[in-house]
């Protein structure tokens, strides 16, 4: 069962690389923001799976903080796209 969870984590990491291709190639800033948002969700799931597999229960908090950081980054870049300034 642990090997299956590890396989799912590796599969998500492979999908991560294709999302990173869109973040590199994307013609506009909105495409890059969408790609980074998808990558943030995937990394949250990967961190949770790694925390369950390695029996390190404190890593769940890392997943929560990573989700918060990704949300704040998305909001900041969207405000910059819309207003051309941050504050």
């Amino acid at each position, binding site marked *: *069962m642990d090997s299956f969870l590890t396989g799912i984590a590796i599969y998500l990491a492979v*999908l991560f690389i294709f999302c990173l291709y869109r973040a590199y190639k994307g013609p506009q800033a909105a495409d890059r923001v969408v790609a980074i*948002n998808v990558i943030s969700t995937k990394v949250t*799931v990967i961190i*949770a799976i790694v925390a369950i597999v390695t029996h390190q229960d404190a890593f769940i908090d890392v997943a929560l903080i990573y989700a918060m950081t990704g*949300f704040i980054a998305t*909001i900041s870049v969207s*405000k910059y796209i*819309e207003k051309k300034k941050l504050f």
Partner: protein
Amino acid sequence: MIKEIIIIALLLASGFFFFVGTIGLLRMPDAFSRMHATTKSDTLGAGLAFSALMIYRGFDVVSIKLLIVLIFVWLTTPTAAHIIAKATYNERNGESK
């Protein structure tokens, strides 16, 4: 035995929805279409993966924390997509405030 079958089915469904989201992100022609493809499938994929991990762990403090992370992801992913769509629409139509 039945628990492991449920966990494997949930994780495979989660992997399928993440795959669909990635294909939509790579193949769709426009930024709004890419948002449309990735947001829903990623929300459902994260929900299925966290549900599988909660069933695997059982009722525990870690399971409650996983539920908190799941609710947070379910709240923030559609909100982030809405904010990106609004910013892109206002940028293209010249309604910057």
